[in-house]
């Protein structure tokens, strides 16, 4: 759609009807939330035409930078991506997502040390029995290079080490299915994709829960961003404001298994430095 948006003031005495076009493109992880919020927003502002599409964080950032869309959805800080001039973009954090390692149920592993996890993903440990599980080969399922989830995971777990070459999938759904059906499989997923068919793994006996994310006891988490280029226009600003409102943050965000930005007790910056609020 047109990246531009126009506001026509068909003013009544009390309120001004918003109108215009907003297109948000990018992260598939953020897409359902944005879509639902967008639909709600639109039902309140019938003159607004709001489209939310996926395409991947890279696409979102590229296109918002090019001015082709009004909002670029991303799982990742713009600063983390080469080729994106982050200073030209404005970040709007709309949710926090926690991620955890998941393993196939019959590996018999429920808890891992951070170091072990790193060794597994760098290929130093290749059998579950080395970490107290069954005698079974480890099958690593990674996320696609460049994906936000992988970046978050590698920042928190590998800390600069390179993951061993392995299977790569590009969606939570595929990972979920592969891990639950492949003996010895290990990967990582956003909390909201946990099912009873796979085993979420605690790290150093910290369980992957929202609370632990909120106080940064659980280290693997990231923001969901909505980027705009320069100052957003009126409708876009109104929508972003709506995203930050209590209505969205307290119900939609939580329903979806994400963590409200309002509940966070810490802040992380693009370099990964965490500060208490």
């Amino acid at each position, binding site marked *: *759609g*047109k990246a531009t948006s126009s506001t026509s003031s068909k003013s009544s005495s009390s309120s001004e009807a918003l109108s215009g076009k907003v297109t948000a493109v990018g992260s598939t992880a953020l*897409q359902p939330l944005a879509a639902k919020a967008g639909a709600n927003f639109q039902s309140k502002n019938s003159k607004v035409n709001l489209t939310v*599409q*996926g*395409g991947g964080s890279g696409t979102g950032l590229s296109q918002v930078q090019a001015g*082709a869309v009004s909002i670029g959805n991303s799982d990742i800080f713009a600063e983390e991506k080469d080729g994106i001039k982050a200073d030209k973009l404005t970040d709007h954090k709309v949710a926090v997502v926690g991620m955890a390692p998941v393993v196939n149920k019959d590996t018999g592993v429920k808890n891992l040390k951070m170091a072990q996890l790193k060794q597994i993903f760098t290929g130093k440990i290749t059998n579950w029995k080395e970490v107290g599980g069954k005698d079974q080969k480890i099958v690593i399922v990674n996320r696609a290079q460049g994906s936000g989830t992988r970046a978050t995971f590698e920042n928190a777990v590998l800390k600069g080490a390179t993951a061993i070459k392995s299977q790569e999938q590009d969606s939570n759904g595929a990972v979920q*299915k592969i891990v639950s059906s492949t003996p010895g499989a290990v990967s990582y997923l956003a909390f909201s994709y946990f099912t009873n068919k796979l085993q979420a793994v605690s790290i150093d006996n910290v369980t992957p829960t929202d609370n632990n994310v909120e106080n940064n006891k659980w280290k693997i988490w990231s923001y969901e961003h909505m980027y705009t280029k320069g100052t957003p226009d009126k409708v876009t600003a109104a929508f972003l404001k709506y995203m930050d409102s209590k209505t969205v943050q307290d119900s939609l965000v939580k329903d979806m298994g994400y963590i409200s930005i309002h509940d966070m007790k810490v802040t992380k910056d693009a370099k990964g430095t965490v500060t208490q609020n």
Partner: protein
Amino acid sequence: MNAKRKDFVATVMINLIVAAVVGILVFLLTYILVAGLPHVSWTFLTGTTDAFSGAGGIGVQLFNSFYLLVLTMLISIPISLGAGIYLAEYAKDNWRTSLIRSAIEVLSSLPSVVVGLFGFLLFVVKFKIGFSVISGAIALTFFNLPLLTRNIEESLSAVSSSQREAGLSLGLSKWKTEIGIILPVALPGIVTGVVLSAGRVFGEAAALIYTAGQSAPVTNFGDWNPMNADSPLNPFRPAETLAVHIWKINTEGLATNAAALSAAASAVLIIAVLLFNLSARLLGNYLYRRVTASK
């Protein structure tokens, strides 16, 4: 007797092959139908999707799939017809023609995501058409053109040349002969091409994600004026198709019953394809009989 034994062996082999193929087909179809049909209900068929979890009905997506198909065919059939006629009738048998043929075939080997991105950058972004049915239809046309063109060309040139001579000897133009006399006879073959490419349209996801989009805005099925923004016929609205919906549920869907939803949607899709194929054949046969006056 040797030859006869070979014949027997070959027949047995072919029957085995067919049995294997049929086995695979039947397995696939039952797998999808058995998993999906129990979850299909009227509300599922007509309801709207929850943008959030992907749960809920697939009414809009179902409509979108058909609408996109119709639009795609409206664009691609005339073009491939013209191109097929060119290849069958006007093209000389030289290197230029075979270059054209190769180029067309290469087009069909491009990954859908490439075509999708091309469509995205060109139609959605550059021409500012936006995520829309029409962008999707154009992108899908790119897939359809090779197969349809080849198919139409082959169906046309399979028609006996004596029919062509008959037309020309009456002073009919080449074009009139081709359109009025050869085309009707070639119709059944062309329907095969249409059916095959329709399948591709129904099943395509990757290209549509970037062009027709992944949202199915609730449309007003009472408003059939294509000019109106929320009319289902508006070609400029984003339109998630059933295949894209299935893809979405499977990749990022959060609904607790995602597996059932996807199975049900797949089953519905198969039935939709079946219905389309059957009606395309029926229509094809009807037209064939009409234009050729055969029983």
